[in-house]
């Protein structure tokens, strides 16, 4: 019990606090008051029902980005392509949203699925290359990020097929139809509820389904999985496709629930946020929700922080880097707290070992 408490509560909390302290030092160096900065951040994230709604909105794609990374981890795969998959999901959901005329009950889920599938295609490509050609997914997914960014840029650019005819020189898609838009109930964005439901579903698939068992088996020992009759190729492709589907779904919710259309270059860096969140949550699908809320709150509060103190929002990625480092290095946290007991493994993922000769 104590060990569980240390791994699941103490380690993440210390990592977050230490990350914030490191961020405060940077803010001091750049000549601002960290208390004012963090005060602005907290008020901007939780200070009003508007702020709270914004935090939930920001947390939504982060939940799905975190789930995408966490799910791939289960198969021993590292999906850094969340950013590109999200862009594809956002662009294709926008297309399904503005180009089709359907009743709301069909239109909303259809556009969400179209967005998810667009991401899944890129994930499947990376999975297939990994399984059949041995091309490491870290490199392919990052390369595909650049491909996706260019492709979605083009789709809504001057010569692209999905350009809003009324936007002049601005590259963007038309607004999605009302029947495809995810509503807000009071301050509560419905997209957030979708993300929470998806997190629960992912938890079920990972922990209770045959597929989840096969994926974990491949992730832990591909040779044993082959011996047990599980096709490593199939599981690698399926796991990458599902992981990328989740990231694409995050983009679709962003389009249908927040932006209302696709505009290139929004929300850059989400792919990396997903890594921090997945590891902070120790790759547990349900724990992804609070981890994403934390990062989402920092994100939502950064605007007010910047207007009060001139601290640029990039401070968040530095804080996140520190958090990621500490979560992955429990021995440092142990040293910080002068703990004598072992704090347990940090991340329960093993990615780098698959890099060398098999």
């Amino acid at each position, binding site marked *: 019990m104590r060990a569980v408490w240390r791994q699941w509560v103490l380690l993440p909390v210390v990592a977050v606090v230490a990350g914030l302290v490191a961020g405060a030092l940077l803010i001091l160096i750049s000549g601002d008051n960290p208390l004012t900065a963090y005060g602005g951040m907290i008020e901007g994230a939780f200070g009003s029902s508007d702020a709270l709604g914004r935090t939930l909105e920001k947390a939504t794609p982060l939940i799905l980005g975190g789930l995408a990374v966490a799910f791939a981890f289960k198969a021993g795969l590292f999906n850094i392509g969340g950013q590109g998959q999200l862009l594809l999901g956002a662009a294709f959901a926008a297309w399904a949203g503005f180009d089709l005329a359907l009743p709301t009950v069909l239109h909303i889920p259809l556009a969400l699925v179209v967005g998810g599938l667009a991401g899944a295609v890129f994930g499947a490509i990376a999975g297939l290359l990994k399984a059949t*050609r041995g091309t490491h997914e870290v490199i392919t997914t990052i*390369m595909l990020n650049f*491909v996706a960014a260019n492709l979605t840029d083009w789709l809504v650019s001057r010569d*692209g097929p999905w350009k809003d005819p009324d936007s002049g020189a601005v590259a963007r898609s038309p607004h999605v139809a009302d029947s495809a838009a995810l509503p807000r109930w009071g301050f509560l964005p419905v997209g957030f509820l979708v993300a929470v439901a998806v997190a629960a579903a992912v938890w079920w698939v990972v922990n209770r389904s045959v597929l989840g068992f096969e994926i974990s088996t491949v992730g832990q020992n591909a040779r044993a999985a082959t011996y047990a009759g599980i096709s490593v190729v199939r599981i690698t492709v399926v796991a990458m496709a599902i992981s990328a589907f989740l990231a694409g779904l995050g983009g679709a919710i962003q389009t249908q629930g927040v932006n209302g259309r696709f505009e290139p270059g929004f929300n850059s860096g989400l792919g990396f946020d997903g*890594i921090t969140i997945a590891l902070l949550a120790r790759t547990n699908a349900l724990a992804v929700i609070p981890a994403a809320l934390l990062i989402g709150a920092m994100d939502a509060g950064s605007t007010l922080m910047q207007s009060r103190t001139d601290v640029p929002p990039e*401070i968040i*990625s530095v804080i996140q880097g520190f958090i990621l480092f500490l979560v992955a290095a429990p021995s440092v946290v142990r040293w910080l707290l002068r703990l004598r007991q072992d704090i347990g493994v940090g991340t329960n993922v093993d990615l780098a070992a698959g890099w060398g*000769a098999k």
Partner: protein
Amino acid sequence: MAATSTPTTPARSSRDDAVSRAASVLADNRAGVAIGIAVVVLALASYQWDGVQTTAITARTVREAAPLILAALCGLIGERSGVVNIGIEGQMLLGAYSGFMAASYSGSLLVGLVAAVGVAALAGLFLAWAAVALRMDQIIAGTVINIVGAGATSFFYVAGRTMPRFPQWSIPGLDDLPLVGRTLFNHGPLTYTAVLMVLVIHVALFHTRWGLRTRAVGEHPGAADTVGVRIQRLRYVNLTLAGGLSGLAGMALLQSAGAFDRGMTAGRGFIALAVMIFGRWRPTGVLGAALLFGLFNAVQAQLQFKQALDVPPQFFGMIPFILTIAVLAVAGVKARPPAAAGRPYDPE
């Protein structure tokens, strides 16, 4: 697998030996030699057709290759010592930023160079500490470098600063040869440095005691340990030195761009890993692979600049990335990384 064994014949003159060695090197690198010949023939043919544009492309190829060579050598030393470095992108950004700011404030490129190499070497030291002492997953450790590198250089970014211009060194007598002169003998200092580093690291890796130890540590640390190689110390030293190379790569980016910009690496740290794999973890292979990637980029940029084809610019923008994936998918199957790359060494 390409067969590397040559039949052993007793007592041959050293000249015969050199010839047969050269022949076996060529036989081992058939694909590379074929691509090289094809590129040279194409360049010569294209030069007859349009000299100015061809020279522009070949010169740009070499210029674009320089940061890739240096970054790929950084990855190569890491993996040869048994540590995967996915954080080259972040190291290059940190190096380029530090180099730019130091050069901008001091007015001296040399001060910038020292700052770039120093800061990037520190990032390499961090990777070694995380991988060796903390036994952190190496891919996550590299990702930390990437996140902090991108975040910190954006956080401290100052718009509107300038740095001194890099000199252009032309080699007298050689630089006005047709095609070859502009291509090879008229570049900034870091381009020459990149080529020099290929030679230095090739000799160091395959012809010195340090190189033998490094390769042993990357392939079979247990065996190296039993003969007294201090594995962990060697990994610290090598990753720090390799970090310095990524700092040089950052300076090479500044040499082309003239100023620091947020995210100016634009994926080159990852393309460098593809270059390293395509170059089969050898410095000379890295040189060839980086030139090939440089050529993709140069052709892409020239076509886009001239608007030679009626294709949207985004499609040109995708070319280097799609080619990276294609090259890895085709070449990766045969590639065999150093056996211990990615695994922390456990002395017990």
